[in-house]
């Protein structure tokens, strides 16, 4: 499968057949401690197969919260990395709300804070330092690059090559390849500028082109009209 870049982290969300049964387990037994080992295995499977289920992971954190003595810090760390990869969805903070303070989550917390405040330089520096931990989770860098593109596309119509490079942490020929991919798939355009070097025109959306915003102001929904018909009649 080719690289798919979109605003939502969709590439994490394909469901395997195993996912189906665990999802079902969670739906039927949301408050059953017996499914804890299944959920733990499922976290590992999500990591190796690049799938993701927020519901299953929240359910597991909930069970840990009810029986702290059964908590595995390694599993918690993996859940947090997967949740980080789901940014801009608020999954990481949803998980944080359920993890007691005494659990050491320094690394992911640190990554989370720089990501939330868009300090990508700091973020990638931190990542470089903890490569051994993050390498275990395939697709991590790619997921964060998607998030960077998401927030850049909300913000910029045109962005300088250097700003983009810093956010996605790619340079030189790799960056050219990255750009080519987006030119082909997301409609990016490169504009050469004498003094400033390359400018990249990002894909248009209603957030960087406010004129695209659909106006819903004048419509009156049908159910409201229905409400006054007996009065008018």
């Amino acid at each position, binding site marked *: 499968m080719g690289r798919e870049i979109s605003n939502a982290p969709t590439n994490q969300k394909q469901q395997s057949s195993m996912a189906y049964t665990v999802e079902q387990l969670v739906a039927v037994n949301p408050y059953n401690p017996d499914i804890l080992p299944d959920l733990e295995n499922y976290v590992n499977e999500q990591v190796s197969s690049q799938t993701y289920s927020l519901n299953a992971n929240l359910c597991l954190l909930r069970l840990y919260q009810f029986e702290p003595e059964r908590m595995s810090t390694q599993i918690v760390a993996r859940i947090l990395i997967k949740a980080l990869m789901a940014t801009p969805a608020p999954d990481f903070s949803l998980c944080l709300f359920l993890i007691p303070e005494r659990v050491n989550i320094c690394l992911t917390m640190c990554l989370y804070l720089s990501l939330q405040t868009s300090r*990508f330089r700091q973020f990638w520096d931190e990542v470089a330092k903890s490569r051994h931990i993050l390498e275990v989770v395939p697709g991590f860098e790619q997921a964060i690059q998607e998030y960077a593109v998401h927030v850049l596309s909300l913000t910029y119509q045109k962005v300088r090559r250097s700003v983009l490079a810093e956010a996605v942490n790619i340079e030189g020929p790799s960056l050219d390849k990255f750009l080519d991919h987006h030119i082909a798939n997301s409609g990016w355009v490169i504009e050469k500028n004498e003094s400033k070097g390359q400018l990249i025109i990002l894909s248009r959306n209603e957030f*960087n082109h406010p004129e695209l915003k659909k106006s819903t*102001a004048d419509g009156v929904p049908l159910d409201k009209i229905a409400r006054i018909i007996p009065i008018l009649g």
Partner: protein
Amino acid sequence: MAVATSYDHEQPIPGDSAAAGYDPNYVPDSVKSFVVHMYRHIREKNVYEIHQMYETSFQSISDRFFKDAPWPSVDSVAPYVDNDHVFCLLYREMWFRHLYARLSPTLKQRIDSWDNYCNLFQVVLHGVVNMQLPNQWLWDMVDEFVYQFQSFCQYRAKMKNKTEQEIALLRQFDQAWNVYGVLNFLQALVEKSTIIQILEQEKEGLEQFTATDGYDYSGGSNVLKVLGYFSMIGLLRVHCLLGDYHTGLKCLLPIDISQQGVYTSVIGSHITTIYHYGFANLMLRRYSEAIREFNKILLYIFKTKQFHQKSPQYEQILKKNEQMYALLAISLSLCPQVQLVEETVNLQLREKYGEKMMRMQRYDEEAFALYDELFSYACPKFITPSAPSYEEPLVNYNQDAYRLQLKLFLYEVKQQQLLSGVRTFLKVYSTISIGKLSTYMEVDEPTLRTILMTYKHKTHAVDSDGKITSNADIDFYIDDDMIHVVESKPAKRYGDYFMRQIVKLEGIMTDIDRIKLEDDSRVEILISHGIRSKREGGENHRGAGIQAGMSGIQDCQGRG
């Protein structure tokens, strides 16, 4: 009715039912008459009379005879009600509720109350009841069940002063108020009642639930259905107490809160629903959603609170009202979408928090202290659901859950620290260069770029299917080095305005007709407004009419 009897008025020691002066077997005449009548009304399915006795008589007898003592024991009243098993369970449920409200329960009593809920819910779940109980009472059961669970967790977490005997009891009865038990009861009520399917079918017109306020007029029982319905709100609340906002909101999903429903038929349930819904949204950074719902309910309370002055829930209503103003102040400070707030609510808000909100904009230490203060005042009473370690040393951990949620909330505030500064500048420019703005804000250009992206990230929520919604009051886009500001002017919704006025006028005209007809149609009005008008006192036909008209308008706004 019975006059004050020879009841012994010696002060019993609170919480100790064995204290001198309280004889659990002594049944005053008024209590005798209360249980006999209540029992009869329940057998006859006279919801109106049950509601009267439940809301009024129970309170007045409590005030007169049991201000600081428990009601007579269930064993001593059982002979007056044919030893009816279900009635005795209901009686004990009220008995414990009264005890919790006026005295402080002992550990043994907490455990007994848990047992009673287990028995009561088992009976309901196994479908052997054919009663019709008022919504108010069914709501109170779920509400009290969750409250007692929360209270138990707080109590258990204060380990420092526990006696050996208490610890032994806690170990022995480790299933009492166990978090799995609590959640599974609520979940079982939701599932067994098939309420989710009922609400689904109602949308297609195949079933009636909301239209009859959940009552069953064809001879069946409303108990399981309505308990199941309120249990969804109970689950929302429990999950919020645990910090699991996502799951909490998911539990509420089957109830469409943009419309009136059975949850609005009881003021306590209406407020609990919106308070927790709003709070969860606030924690998930969906500020405009929180603001919208707080605004609606605060306006509703403002207009209707006079009708609840005599209700035993009145104090609770006022407290939640104040807390929701605090939450609204927080939401608006993080996301200044003032146009979402109705003028009446806004005036109240300015009066209560105007000055604090000004200071919260500044993002210095004092501003943080204010966020802390408002959050601590208005947040739910978070709980740690797990049992303590009973090994020495015994430590208190009742504040742990609250501290965690507060810390995470303040992290969020801190992350948004520089956004209000950006906002201030963007308000006065239509275009400004990155260089110029960075000079004004006294940061370097790369930092300013991170702040601007943070602004975008924090003001644009992404839901689970990738849809992006903007919460921004002021938006912008950047063309390389130039920031272009876009002010989002709220479009005037004339259609909406006229629709509302038409409904309002119709409401007023109906009221006028009703006043004219009042004398000869007293009876019909009483019937048509059923329980709702009863709650607001005896001779309140006009009040009820106006309220009905108003709830029509409210509904219309709700959909807007």
